[in-house]
């Protein structure tokens, strides 16, 4: 039984990674799971300088999901390089670094700083709904998706994954723009913009008013988008959005994802990533699937 997958020349021991921002840089979860069992660890969005993020409350529970408006708090790329890369390199797993910026220039600065670092892929987050500038604004317009992709590609030494926003009319348009811009892969979906009101206080639950909706509630939307994108571009896809179990992950793989990322599920069960890895193996064993590639995009 072989669970190996390959994206842009990088080999992953299995198709399971973490969704950026839900796993830190793996430090906290390394107490719960052996990071070496994961195909890759995808780290929290990192910017050129430290970002303080949004005021609290930053998170709220919703029916079958949650809202977050962290606002991309992060220690900045220098601390990341110094502290987090060496930490992750102790494990036998690939490193995908999620990159954020408020301007095209800032994205490029981070990519440049990372160019000579020992990381495997870069994921460019053009889809965060929780920051005023940058983020999602880049991801909701095909021309700017193509522009930022090609700019980043020019500097990057690692393969580039463009992370797409679901808050668009037609996600395949954005996927095609990423492909034209020279992306090596796409990942989807980031969170859907949502809101919650406390009817007793008659106030927004989040200080930021709106936040990004994640968790199992959004899975059907994410799965549809992965399927649509798989049928419109040639690039490999990292699928995510509401995956709790191996069954969920297999839906994404069958819809066309080469890899899957586990996000909100980590908060509910710190061992979610490993349980998905093991569940996929169980499914393959039970159904006598020799190679995971037999499952990728098998539902048409």
């Amino acid at each position, binding site marked *: 039984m072989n669970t190996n997958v390959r994206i842009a020349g990088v080999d992953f021991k299995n198709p399971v990674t973490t969704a950026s*921002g*839900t*796993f*830190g840089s793996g430090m*906290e*979860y390394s*107490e*719960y799971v052996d990071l070496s069992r994961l195909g890759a660890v995808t780290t*929290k969005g990192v910017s050129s300088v*430290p*970002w*303080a*993020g949004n005021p*609290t*409350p*930053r*998170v*709220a*529970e919703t*029916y*079958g*999901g*949650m809202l*977050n408006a*962290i606002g991309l*708090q*992060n*220690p*900045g790329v220098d*601390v990341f390089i110094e502290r987090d890369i060496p930490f992750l390199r102790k494990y036998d797993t690939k490193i995908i670094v999620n990159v954020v910026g408020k301007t095209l220039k800032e994205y490029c600065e981070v990519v440049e700083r990372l160019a000579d670092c020992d990381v495997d892929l870069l994921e460019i987050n053009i889809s965060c709904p929780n920051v005023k500038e940058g983020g999602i604004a880049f991801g909701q317009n095909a021309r700017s998706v193509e522009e930022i992709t090609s700019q980043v590609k020019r500097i990057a030494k690692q393969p580039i994954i463009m992370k797409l926003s679901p808050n668009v009319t037609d996600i395949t348009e954005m996927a095609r723009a990423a492909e034209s811009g020279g992306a090596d892969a796409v990942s989807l979906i980031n969170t859907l913009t949502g809101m919650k009101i406390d009817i007793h206080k008659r106030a927004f639950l989040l200080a930021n008013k709106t936040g990004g909706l994640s*968790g*199992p509630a959004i899975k059907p939307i994410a799965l549809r988008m992965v399927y649509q994108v798989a049928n419109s571009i040639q690039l490999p896809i990292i699928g995510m959005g509401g995956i709790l179990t191996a069954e969920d992950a297999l839906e994404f793989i069958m819809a066309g994802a080469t890899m899957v990322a586990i996000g*909100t599920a*980590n*908060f*509910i*069960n*710190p*061992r979610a990533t490993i349980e998905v890895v093991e569940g996929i193996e169980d499914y393959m064993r039970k159904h006598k699937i020799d190679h995971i590639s037999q499952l990728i995009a098998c539902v048409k």
Partner: protein
Amino acid sequence: MVLAEKHKVVIKQNIQLDEDIYSMWLEDSYVAKNAKAGQFVSLYLEDGSSLLPRPISICEIDKELGRIRLVYRVVGKGTLAFSTLKGGDEITVMGPLGNGFHLEGKNPLLIGGGIGIPPMLELAKQLDGEKKIVLGYRDSIFMSQEFEQYGKVYISTEDGSAGTKGNVIDAIFDHDIRTDMIYACGPTPMLRAIQAYAKEKGMKAQLSLEERMACGIGACLGCVCKSTERDHHTNVNNKRICKDGPVFYADEVEL
């Protein structure tokens, strides 16, 4: 560092203390063995529509019998569900989480406000020295007798129905209480007043903070508070309440 795995435990007892306040004893030898006063646990709901864990402070630890006690107020879906559980039922727990109080001071002053009172109980048990305990209520009194064996108890109520009329600070003034270390847990306005009071008097204080959480273990950055110094982990002026707290020295944080 103790690994705080998610685990299922049996409820020993779950009784009502006051109108919306419940006290639950759990058969949890793992948490009992490893927990410190001021730490908390994450409780999980059975209903799949509510996915995030509920952080609840540890109120008492019985290391011998391998039990912990939680006291909680019913405020929403989760705590309502907990209140319907009975002895013998099971519940899923993760913990102990957070840092807990540092035990120090010769004549410590413990201050609890509302649902911030329960975590003071285990602390009162563990602290040495001559303890003074100030408990602030809106109106109805709960748990105050349980504190009496550990120190001198002063009460404040907002409606004046018992003790000092007003808040915990009023009670402290009322009784001219002196201390070399304040320990406090309660609503943010109370903690803010204590922070100011401690600063003014040049006293040290440990404050237990609260914020909405998702992961409970320091990964999501949902639960931060403003820190006075740039925090070593986050590299900004933010600390994570779940991981770096919930207990902070008063001069570490901005409230």
